């Protein structure tokens, strides 16, 4: 340790610095859920109206809204929800009355497996794509930008049509056997995971292509090559250290995105995870369930960013570490 952190003031500062990401995460979480809450409010109809399916009398609808607590102002309901969250209570579903936490506990394992497989696929595809475009002198990378722009349903439709319909290699839907894990028949994971991984790998490739090019063009890399060091060594010692930090941050970003993306993939393939729960909760304006579903990708993203930060501090190129350490991004200067 250097003298910088010596003394009482340094300790407080250090503690403050350690807490800062936590505070930031909390603030961002609150912001994310507030946005989702507002968006749900702006949708036409609420749980009371939609549950009575429109054919009930005005008095019936009012009674139902009253029972569900929907007659209170939106701000009060949001504050209520936030207060519950702080106490670790996600509330109860407006539709079934079951604790939201239970609904998610049932479905989280399936989604966790799907996201993990999709993330692994993303990493694999991204590394391959970067290697290929790198070998070709950086050409062909614009294809990644194009692929990243293709909407997810198109991937789902094309993949399903080809791999399940035409070739018959995979099941067209991803139902899980009762009480079973997706790992019992991993084939059911392929289509939803590919639907998630392809666009996110394209996105990651587009983002990291620039960082890779920058790293390759650095003087010390040119220098190392001129000195005749073998390519793997140059890559390992002089190029990759500059990619860890952005790669980790991109991974954190994508993990959050993948969790959010399960909504579509799970619904299309009938996969019983939290994404499917979100979609059907939006349809009936089940606000506590929607809020919890919004919390999930936000939490994954923020946690990922936090880990990426910590990791970046440790893995930044050795000659940069001392100066780069305090920054959020750990970006080498």
């Amino acid at each position: 340790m250097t003298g910088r952190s010596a003394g009482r003031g340094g300790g407080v500062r250090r503690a403050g610095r350690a807490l800062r990401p936590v505070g930031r995460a909390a603030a961002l979480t609150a912001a994310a859920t507030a946005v989702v809450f507002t968006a749900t409010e702006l949708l036409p109809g609420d749980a009371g109206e939609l549950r009575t399916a429109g054919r009930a009398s005005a008095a019936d609808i009012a009674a139902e809204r009253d029972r569900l607590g929907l007659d209170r102002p939106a701000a009060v309901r949001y504050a209520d929800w936030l207060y519950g969250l702080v106490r670790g209570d996600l509330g109860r579903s407006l539709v079934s009355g079951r604790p939201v936490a239970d609904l998610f506990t049932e479905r989280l394992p399936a989604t966790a497996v799907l996201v993990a497989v999709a993330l692994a696929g993303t990493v694999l595809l991204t590394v391959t794509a970067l290697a290929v475009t790198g070998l070709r002198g950086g050409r062909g990378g614009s294809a990644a930008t194009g692929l990243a722009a293709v909407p997810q349903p198109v991937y789902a439709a094309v993949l399903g049509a080809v791999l399940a319909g035409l070739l018959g290699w995979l099941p067209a839907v991803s139902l899980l056997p009762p009480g079973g894990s997706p790992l019992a028949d991993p084939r059911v994971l392929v289509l939803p995971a590919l639907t998630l991984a392809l666009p996110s790998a394209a996105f990651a490739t587009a983002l990291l292509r620039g960082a890779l090019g920058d790293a390759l063009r650095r003087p010390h890399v040119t220098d190392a090559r001129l000195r005749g060091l073998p390519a793997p060594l140059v890559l390992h010692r002089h190029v990759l250290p500059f990619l860890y930090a952005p790669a980790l941050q991109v991974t954190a970003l994508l993990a959050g995105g993948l969790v959010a993306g399960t909504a579509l993939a799970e619904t299309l393939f009938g996969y019983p995870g939290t994404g499917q729960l979100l979609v059907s909760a939006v349809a009936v304006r089940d606000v506590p369930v929607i809020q919890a579903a919004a919390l999930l990708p936000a939490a994954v993203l923020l946690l990922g960013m936090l880990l990426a930060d910590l990791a970046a501090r440790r893995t930044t190129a050795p000659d940069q570490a001392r100066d780069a350490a305090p920054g959020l991004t750990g970006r080498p200067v």
Partner: protein
Amino acid sequence: MHQHPTPRSLPSRRSAATALAAVGALLLSACSSTPAKDTPAASDSTPVDGGTLRYAVAGSPATASGDPHGGLGNESDVLRFALTYDVLTVPGADGRTRPRLATSWKPDADMDRWTLTLRDDARFTDGRPVRAADVLYSLRRIAGKAAENYGRLADFDLAKSTAPDAHTVVLATRAPMADAPRALESVTFVVPEGSEDFSRPVTGSGPYRVERTGAQTAVLTRNEKWWGERPHLDRIEIQAVADPQARASAVASGQADVAGSVSPAAVKSAGSSARTQVIRRDGVTEYPFVMRLDTAPFDDPRVREAFRLAADRKALVDTVFLGYGKVANDLPTPYDPSTPKDLPQRTRDVEKAKRLLAQAGHADGLTVTLHTTTSYPGMDTAATLYAQQLADIGVDAEVKVEPADTYWTAVYAKKAFYTGYYGGISFPDLTRVGLLSDSPTNETAWRSRSFDEGFAEAMATANEARRQDLLAGIQRDLWKDGGYVVWGTGDGLDLAAPGVRGLPDGPGFQRMFIDQVWMAK
């Protein structure tokens, strides 16, 4: 999504109200009184025992519930309830009420007290006998949850109902109600008296028992002690799948044995495959065009008649239901036993329609707005095609596709001319909710004293044939003068693996009672 299935025979006025609209895939595929002739499942070979049936059924995780007395928002839950709980009565394949837990029923002279005799050999799976007290408790619990289940039993006065002995229940109705046994069909799930916590499966007395429930699936095994005819299947796995296409794919790819409520398009695309059979449940899904009698130009009967004559019914059925349906004759419940059989079929007559419009003062044409939505597949298509047909009689109909989420609150029963939805409601239910002068949502603004009196008289008539005659009589007025253009009904469609036999193809919730299904080896 379509989250609110409600049974065909919803008992109450408010439940009927909901049934009108409400509601989901269940209804989409509901009910008929005559089994489709080409149903392969209606095989006459001898049933064999054993096997597991995997049933992919409409269901959304957000509306899933374990409480059989609340809102029946999820078809997958209803299927589970129908297999694990006994109900008082069920609809038969011919549309008539059949006994289940109630072996017989008898009204008093005023038709407002019904004495039901319960079978004495029914037991819950924990060994306790099913008693009248359990039935009354369950019915009262349903009535107590009226806000959640749209007042499913609102026409019964359960405070005045009694259980004079262990196997007799006397149900009081709020008004003479000749169709009370029908109102008890399918949804009167009986649980043990005092059951309150439904977060875990509550014991039932039905043909199957719940072995396991999870995020999307329920596993049921045969209840060996059930009083009824022994079910053939050892096990039934219920898979809730929200997307109709995913359900159809599940059967096509061998991941499920039955897919409930699939779209005509899915059937067309599966039609060439030897791996699937189509179960066709004669149609009651309908998207009538509704004209309000209290609003110009539809306050003129000549305009309404012209609009009915403009419809090319066959073209509509072929386009909207892809041929899986048949033309209708402007009566909203053609499957009801009370439908008059002697009315001529209205057909397209452009010249006569133009003449009528001219007589009504619209010789130079007429401009109207036809509201529709996308709540149910094909609703918007129906309106668009009908608007083209109206152009031929000189009517300029602008089709306005409204958001599905608010359609039933903002448009339904409010605009002068719009697309409705029925999923198999009975004529008495429809009348209570939408055709009496004091009905809560009189969607056509149909107010006729003779109609009101005719209905009251019919409901107080014990003789069934006489009652159906009376109901048929008031439907003739409706056919002649009402505010409906009912152009056709679409079939309910299920897909099944080739070996599945005995799937119900009758009315409404009857198809949830799959305890006699078997699998050919």
